């Protein structure tokens, strides 16, 4: 081989290493150090400023206003005939949607052995748990008399009456509880080895904290075997649970014979919508982690934004397909009230939101994510992700309060105007970000052992004169 060829090959390998985390291994100790350094870095004044602002918003928007709502009753909110379902349920559906990305990234990509998932599975899994916390809060806000929430649980009250298990609202409770518990367990299991790593490197209260959470994990063959089997079971089993959750949420609407809701395609339409908003939120979280935490540009690279960007593009196309399918059938059906509703969506006072939804969910992602260079630009893809989330929130707003305005009794038609819901909704967003900020200081956001496992599996191999990357199946 000539020097020129050798040099070209070497620079090709170097280029691949720069681009792909899996081809750019560092010693495990170094990676541990980088992750711990990111976690233990002393918060700057900017961090404290953001933290304080968010905490104030949560205290005022979420808890103070919720207290007012509880004391004065649901009249404080804008819900009244015919709009009994308002922003609280919009937020419930929205946050459950956000939670889907965690499972999608962690479970589906794990099952299909997509290697790019490795450094950000935990950040995505956290999104599932934190998103479901907001969804739970939103349901309780909608409930009004939240102290009676336990009436939902399937046990008889003093009159020997059980919750109606034929009702989609009761299925909601079962599905969301199942999903919240299973996603939290699925977050915790792969975290155990990283907590043990943190335990080995900590002192003071942190040492005790990680020691308790690491449960005495050492990394014996038996412990890894049990963990591996459990994670495989979780990865396969949590996927149908994820699909069931949003399908059941869609049945809250589709099972009612209302114009615009009574659609057989609502289940998959809701699931793809959930993935759409979830992936958008996931990419925004990744960009923030990479941009604000130390050493994260080693773990989270352009390739990850590119890969998630491709998924976002495909999911956007899927959402467009289901949206058009649902719209087409309703439009073609010719039902008088459905026609009225469709006209109200497009040309009514909230028409701007309907068009903005299409721009945010279809036009923006298609215009930007087709380009590989743009797709690999973190701030740009994150912005697209946030825009998609605005679009998906609009979509839920149109489906719920805007759609219930139009019913079969025109004398009741009245547009929903939110009241106390607005600061409370902002409070849930603030709490979601706040939980992430706290998590970033308490748990290793990068699953270091999974990254190392992936790096062990990748190597360069020569085929003829070309050097290619091969991946061994170690799991």
């Amino acid at each position, binding site marked *: 081989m000539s020097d020129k060829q050798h040099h070209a090959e070497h620079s090709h390998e170097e280029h691949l290493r720069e681009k792909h985390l899996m081809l750019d291994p560092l*010693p*495990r*100790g170094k990676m*541990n150090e980088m992750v711990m350094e990111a976690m233990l870095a002393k918060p700057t004044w900017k961090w404290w400023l953001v933290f304080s602002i968010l905490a104030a918003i949560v205290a005022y928007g979420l808890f103070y206003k919720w207290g007012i709502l509880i004391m004065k009753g649901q009249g404080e909110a804008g819900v009244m005939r015919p709009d009994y379902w308002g922003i609280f349920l919009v937020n419930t559906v929205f946050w459950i949607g956000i939670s889907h990305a965690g499972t999608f990234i962690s479970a589906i990509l794990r099952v299909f052995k997509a290697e790019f998932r490795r450094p950000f599975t935990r950040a995505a899994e956290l999104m599932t748990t934190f998103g479901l916390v907001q969804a739970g809060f939103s349901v309780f806000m909608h409930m009004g008399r939240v102290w009676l929430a336990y009436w939902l649980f*399937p046990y*008889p009250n003093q*009159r*020997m*009456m*059980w919750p*109606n*298990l*034929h*009702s989609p609202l009761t*299925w909601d409770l*079962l*599905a969301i*509880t*199942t999903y919240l*518990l*299973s996603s939290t*367990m*699925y977050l*915790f299991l792969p975290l155990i*080895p990283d907590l*043990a*790593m943190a*335990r*080995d*490197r900590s002192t003071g209260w942190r040492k005790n904290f990680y*020691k*308790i959470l690491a*449960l*005495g*994990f*050492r*990394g*014996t*063959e*038996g412990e*890894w*075997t*049990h*963990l*591996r*089997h*459990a994670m495989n*079971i*979780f990865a396969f*089993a*949590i996927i*149908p*649970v994820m699909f*069931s959750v949003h399908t059941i949420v869609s049945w809250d609407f589709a099972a009612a014979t209302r114009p615009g809701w009574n659609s057989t395609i609502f289940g998959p339409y809701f699931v793809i919508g959930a993935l759409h908003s979830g992936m958008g939120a996931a990419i925004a979280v990744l960009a923030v982690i990479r941009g604000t935490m130390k050493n994260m540009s080693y773990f989270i690279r352009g390739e990850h934004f590119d890969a998630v960007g491709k998924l976002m593009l495909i999911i956007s196309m899927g959402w467009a397909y289901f949206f058009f399918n649902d719209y087409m059938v309703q439009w073609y059906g010719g039902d008088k009230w459905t026609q009225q509703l469709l006209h109200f969506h497009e040309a009514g006072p909230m028409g701007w939101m309907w068009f903005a939804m299409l721009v945010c969910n279809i036009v923006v992602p298609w215009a930007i994510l087709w380009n590989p260079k743009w797709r690999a630009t973190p701030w740009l893809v994150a912005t697209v992700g946030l825009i998609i989330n605005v679009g998906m929130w609009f979509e839920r707003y149109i489906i719920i309060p805007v759609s219930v305005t139009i019913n079969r009794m025109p004398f009741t038609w009245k547009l929903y105007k939110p009241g106390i819901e607005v600061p409370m909704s902002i409070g849930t967003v603030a709490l979601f970000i706040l939980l992430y900020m706290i998590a970033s200081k308490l748990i290793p956001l990068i699953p270091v*052992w999974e990254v*190392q*496992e992936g790096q*062990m599996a990748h190597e360069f191999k020569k085929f003829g004169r070309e050097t290619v990357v091969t991946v061994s199946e*170690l*799991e």
Partner: protein
Amino acid sequence: MAEKVDLLAVFPDLEPAANAVERLRALGVHDDRMNVISGVPVTEAMLGRAPQWTNVPRIAMGGAILGFGVGVFLAYIAPFLYPYPIQVSTQGFVPGPPTAVVLFEMTMLGMLLSTFLGVFLESFFPNYRPMKYLPEISDGKIVVFFECAYAEENKITDALKKLGAESVRPAEAQPL
């Protein structure tokens, strides 16, 4: 003086650790007396060890059956416990589709909860007693713990060092 001694050998990588396992076996250390601890999941096949037994899938299956049972109770039996039975529209008293939803969710919840608990049961978590361990393991070192006859200690130590062990020393339980 004890006839047996607990030792640990620290290896920088998987290959010498796998060779060490083979060598220890050749030197008369039984597989039951060895344990390999690593910071990444190293499969038994990579180490040339017999497959580890785990009951996690069986426990998961048990939990699924239990969850299914709870689902059957809620879907089939609970409706008969109402003092005033609820008839929803023209649906049967125990209609099929809603029953399927309840059965599915309860089965999955039972399976996943028991899978999680299965890891705890099988790994004896939580365990906060002092244990044989080295913090370097989570830095990527692979440590082979083994028990051998006291008389064999020097011979085995030399053999493992020749195979690339960074150190071979007595293993002592310590607080994690």
